């Protein structure tokens, strides 16, 4: 299959973990038959949203090449990630795909000056060859995120705020001039009043610097604010995906609807809707190993077939929904459907 029209091409990947010993033990399907693409042409912000145990972290590790899928393939710029074996090849890959981590105070070694990482990155990827060049490169990267080398010079992580460190983390990720930044919950540990700054940065990266962002989060509000497309995950499956305007404003999958409804709004028009009593699901492990749809245990529209067979991916316009409720609506495609690009 010719796939080099896309930056990332994730084809029907599954990740299965075996927990426990050689005899017995439990099988955990962390990611189940997931497919999506990230465009090469246009920079975009693609959100992978889900709660804990949804598989989004495992998926992010797949995309960073940290982990190989049990079945299926992940292609980057047309090449299968499992092909990268030598240090040079891996290095060439991570030059183009850089991460930003969740916990600002763990991202950098508390015993090292923060700027050391930026200089290291500049030298290691051949972006600079002399100290003078590196200083310029580092300063430029910091300015792109609204800081400067003067402010940050000689500082240790605990001397900076969470927001500042996340911005420096993004600056570091920008130095090798990546195609994609993979941000794993980048603002969940940052103060509310500083979040917008960082989230706006991602927008700027997309609009001005043409860097795509894969944004992994459980916070639907910020996801709505910056994303172009979104995929909602539940227990390893993408249950709904499509343009963010559609998926978050008029969610179709019952889980997406529950998720949206559960996000507390600062100016609730209908306070009672959020306060409506809900029952929380059974434990995670039980839901993971359920046959059929993973939401069947708590879905208000559940039918018999939901308990038996995995629902198919149904394409409706630019959206894909994994739910039997919509089998009649749009044409049902086979499971190798990809999300249509924006």
């Amino acid at each position, binding site marked *: 299959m010719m796939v080099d029209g896309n930056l990332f091409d994730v084809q029907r990947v599954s990740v299965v973990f075996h927990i426990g010993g050689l005899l017995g033990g439990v099988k955990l399907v962390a990611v189940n038959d997931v497919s999506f693409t990230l465009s090469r042409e246009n920079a975009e912000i693609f959100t992978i949203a889900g709660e804990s145990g949804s598989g989004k972290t495992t998926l992010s590790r797949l995309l960073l090449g940290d982990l190989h899928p049990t079945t299926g393939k992940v292609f980057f710029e047309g090449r299968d990630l499992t092909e990268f074996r030598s240090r040079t090849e891996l290095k060439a890959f991570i030059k183009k795909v850089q991460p930003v981590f969740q916990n600002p105070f763990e991202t950098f*070694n508390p015993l*090292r000056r923060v700027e050391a990482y930026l200089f290291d990155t500049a030298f290691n990827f051949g972006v600079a060859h002399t100290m003078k060049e590196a200083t310029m490169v580092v300063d430029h990267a910091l300015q792109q995120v609204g800081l400067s080398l003067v402010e940050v010079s000689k500082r240790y992580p605990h001397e900076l705020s969470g927001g500042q460190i996340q911005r420096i983390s993004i600056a570091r990720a920008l130095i090798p001039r990546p195609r994609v930044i993979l941000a794993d919950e980048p603002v969940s540990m940052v103060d509310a009043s500083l979040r917008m700054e960082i989230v706006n940065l991602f927008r700027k990266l997309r609009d001005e610097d043409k860097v795509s962002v894969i944004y992994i989060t459980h916070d639907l509000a910020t996801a709505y604010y910056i994303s172009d497309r979104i995929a909602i995950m539940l227990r390893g499956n993408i249950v709904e995906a499509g343009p963010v305007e559609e998926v978050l404003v008029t969610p179709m999958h019952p889980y997406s609807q529950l998720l949206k409804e559960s996000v507390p709004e600062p100016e609730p028009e209908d306070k009672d809707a959020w306060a409506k009593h809900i029952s929380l699901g059974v434990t995670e492990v039980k839901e993971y190993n359920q046959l059929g749809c993973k939401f069947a245990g708590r879905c208000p529209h559940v039918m018999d077939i939901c308990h038996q067979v995995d629902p198919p991916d149904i394409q409706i316009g630019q959206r894909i929904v994994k739910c039997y409720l919509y089998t009649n609506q749009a044409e049902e495609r086979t499971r190798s459907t990809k999300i249509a690009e924006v």
Partner: protein
Amino acid sequence: MSIFRIIRDLLKYDSRFRIAFVFLSAILIMMLLSFVSPYSPNKTFVVAMDMPPSLEHPFGTSSRGQDIFWWMTFAVRNSFLLGIVTAVLSRVIAIIVGLMAGYEGGWIDKILMAINDSFVVMPLLPILILLGFLLRGKMNFFTLGLILGIFGWPWDARLIRSQVLSLKERSFTRTAVYSGTHPFWITIHEHLPFVLPIVFATTINNMLWSIGMEVTLSVLGLSDVGTPTIGTALFWANQHGALVAGVWWWIAAPTFIAIILFLGLYLLFSSINEYIDPRTRLRLIGG
């Protein structure tokens, strides 16, 4: 932070350091005095025997006609050097083994830990005693230092390895990976600073252990008894039945010096270790 500022801070605020400073300065002075000793430690019967401590002979004289004070200056020097040789050798081995096993993992880790654990279970004292018998008289102190160094690393290598294993999981290790840093430099720049306090803490243990081992061997007469050390001092005193003969100063002097040396080293590393501990460092910087 210059070394003088560190010493000044510690002197001012840590009473342990002050005491250690005094004790170890005294030891250092004794060591230096050995270079200007009027008596050679190898010559016997150069002064009157069995004389109690006096102005002329601060620690008295022994039954072999030697001035104990000047003899001890050599003893202190040799014991201390032995401790240093052992400590340095075993630290270096422990760090290399611990870092490699921890970071590489896989079969390198398995092999190294297998070697490590074999050393741990080897009963050292009987082996040393055996070696002492076999090489009777021919084991010089440098050799002893090397042997002790080779046996002294396993415990700490495992400690260092565990530390590295947990450090590998932390986000900043991943950040270093994505900054394109080679795994070797990751170990040195990211992990070693956390490992150093362990190394310092165990250095003192190691020195005390090796000096103690030496004393044990020497008292049993299994080392080169011609060389002056704290242990051989006790050996000779015993040989001549010092306590029974009433020559108590011959036992008291090496014991007293050993206590000062041990206490001094212990307090020194205890205070430096707290100072160096990343958690204290972070507090200091104002975190």
